[in-house]
């Protein structure tokens, strides 16, 4: 899939990192999270200009045709900066889903505008259970004459508030299918999120007209989620490393009892243990991305491993970072809690650690 050389990849990542270092510093994150949209249009445009939004679109549809390896690395940078907005949901997940479909018409209509950043598309995967598996899909689709009609509800939908088009998984008489729905035709209820940089919605369907996206089934559902999981693992690995670095810097400068607190053995040992988590998260996310791109035999093992290892690492590092900072990180003005909030949201999106551990063992059993 990948036509991008390691040097090009490194250059793109570096450029993206520079952009975020300019336009997505902590003050920007706080500014954007206070807006209703939860997105920074200027930054979005700059990202589109840089080709970031085009990564997961094939070149025949105006994109770059990159793979999981590239978006994982981009998401490491995004996570480090706590980037908000529809990069993951539209440019990476929705683009992947459309790419995986067999719907040439939808590809031609939607992919170029996703790649250019002009249009935002998002995917509704799960219902109120938030279980991100096939039984968790509670929207139903029925063909009435020539018209597909949706009923039920989808929840925990990312960036639906910004979407020009919704892609909705639904139970059809023949198994899972996916449908294009115009956001104007449904009721979108914003869900207040503990992570203020996140925009989640619940979407209610009532005899809603929808267009079938051809060639999407249960397998596509899992394939799309696998891409989402690898991208999210990248975000977790990157965010985990950044809050760790922030913490280590603080340990070198905060003086108590006549010396920097990083000199105290208890703190030093906590930091050493966290470094294992940080490095493991990075290794796991990247290995999963490589396995996904290569369709490797141990793909399921590595994706599920990354899913819980990165979620747990980010949660642990963000939580411990607050403890290591002490009182200052108990204030709203300090960034540590923003990482904790992101960590707790990311630990739920697309699945939970216990379930991933179960899937990991099942994948290992198959291999054994």
């Amino acid at each position, binding site marked *: 899939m990948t036509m991008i050389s390691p040097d090009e990849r490194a250059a793109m990542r570096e450029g993206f990192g520079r952009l975020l270092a300019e336009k997505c510093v902590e003050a920007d994150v706080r500014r954007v999270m206070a807006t209703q949209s939860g997105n920074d249009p200027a930054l979005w445009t700059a990202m589109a200009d840089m080709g970031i939004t085009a990564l997961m679109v094939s070149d025949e549809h105006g994109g770059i045709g990159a793979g999981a390896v590239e978006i994982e690395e981009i998401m490491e940078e995004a996570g480090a900066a706590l980037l908000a907005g529809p990069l993951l949901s539209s440019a990476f997940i929705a683009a992947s889903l459309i790419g995986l479909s067999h719907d040439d018409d939808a590809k031609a209509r939607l992919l170029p505008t996703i790649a250019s950043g002009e249009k935002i598309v998002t995917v509704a995967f799960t219902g109120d259970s938030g279980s991100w598996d096939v039984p968790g899909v509670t929207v139903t689709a029925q063909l009435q004459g020539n018209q597909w009609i949706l009923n039920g509800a989808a929840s925990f939908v990312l960036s639906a508030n910004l979407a020009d088009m919704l892609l909705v998984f639904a139970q059809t008489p023949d198994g899972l299918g996916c449908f294009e729905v115009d956001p104007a035709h449904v009721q979108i209820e914003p869900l207040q999120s503990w992570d203020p940089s996140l925009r989640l919605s619940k979407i209610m369907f009532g005899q809603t007209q929808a267009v079938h996206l051809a060639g999407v089934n249960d397998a596509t559902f899992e394939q799309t989620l696998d891409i989402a999981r690898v991208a999210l693992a990248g975000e977790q690995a990157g965010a985990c490393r950044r809050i760790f670095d922030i913490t280590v810097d603080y340990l070198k400068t905060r003086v108590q009892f*006549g010396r920097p607190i990083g000199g105290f053995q208890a703190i030093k040992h906590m930091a050493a243990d966290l470094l294992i988590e940080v490095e493991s998260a990075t290794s796991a996310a990247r290995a999963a991305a490589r396995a996904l791109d290569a369709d490797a035999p141990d793909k399921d093992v590595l994706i599920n491993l990354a899913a819980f290892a990165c979620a747990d690492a980010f949660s642990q590092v963000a939580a411990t970072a607050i403890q290591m900072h002490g*009182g200052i990180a108990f204030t709203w003005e300090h960034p540590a809690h923003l990482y904790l909030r992101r960590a*707790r949201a990311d630990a739920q999106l697309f699945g939970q650690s216990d379930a991933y551990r179960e899937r990991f063992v099942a994948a290992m059993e198959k291999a054994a």
Partner: protein
Amino acid sequence: MNSDAMTIGDEVRAWLADHWDAESRRAKAGGSLAEWMDQVMEAGWAVPSWPTQWWGRGLDKKSVSAIVNEFRKVGAPGAGQDRTNITANSVMQFGSDTLKRKIIPEFLTGRAHQCLLYSEPGAGSDLAAVRTRADLQGDHYVVTGQKVWTSGARNADYGLLIARTDWDVPKHEGLSFFIIEMRQPGIEIRPINQITGDSHFNEVFLDGAIVPAENRVGDEGQGWKVMQTALAVERLVMGDGAGERRQGSSKNNVVSLIDIARETGKIDDPVARQDIAQAMAYRQLNALNMLRAKQDMAQGTASPIMSLGKLAMSRILHEDARVMTRLLGAESMLDGADHARAADINYRTANAYMTSIGGGTDQIQRNIIGERVLGLPRETEADRNLPFRESRAVTG
């Protein structure tokens, strides 16, 4: 129970029968809570172990327990503050007679509210590094500096203040302890925005604030010792579940993990049940420890177990929040009034740091346990014997 305690039990029961209506839980004489407290204080029940000339009765610990017990039975407040009232105890132990007469009745009757002016931006775990200065000018001190993590500052009549009166001796030796009036022009209070969304705490800016010399508690340079005594009382109170009551939330803090598991349909999930068991075990084991500590203390044995309570409570609160999050699953991403269960759990997640950081971090607490309970060698402190003026807290 010895015969003395029996006698005092009889006496306090009779007194309560005369003065307190257990049905309506009010004083028979009517009036405000403070007026009831006046009666309790005058009768010597407020601080029974103190000498008779100082509102007490000169009784032993067992008698105090008996008194507290009788008050508890009929739901009457105010007895046994010689165990719990931090300010009154500090002043009683270290203050001048003038200060005792002026301050203690206000606190024993609950008429005065206090706040703690201890921590500073540069003096958190290292409390002795405070740089707020108190300079003696005639019959009063002039105080300048910044305090943080002060709860109840807006509502407080007095602040318990630790400040530096001598910069040329090692850091622990140059501190003095004061009771300062909070309502004065030299004091400005700014609320701190917490990660919980609350603002229970404040920054307090002191700029030429005045405190009369007679409000100094203990001698100049004795401040560290006075504060340690006050903190020890506070930590003892925190381990016994009081850490939760202090959180300033009106929420009922002991929520059953089993109820949450039932509500979220996870009650039959064997993996979730193991998590629930461990979290509930932490809580029960701490309760059993505290119970044993109280039994030890009732027998007159000092209990080292009490000092474990705050650290144990920290683990309990973090683990509860973790298990609750796990039970809630995706719902835990949500917040706000529409998602009350998630909001409660998110609040707990953030608020658990109040116990693991506030009032001495878990790390400081482990030092204390290791050194004072287990007798392990003290941490070497680079600046312990330096004149404070030359320490890194000042030189940076």
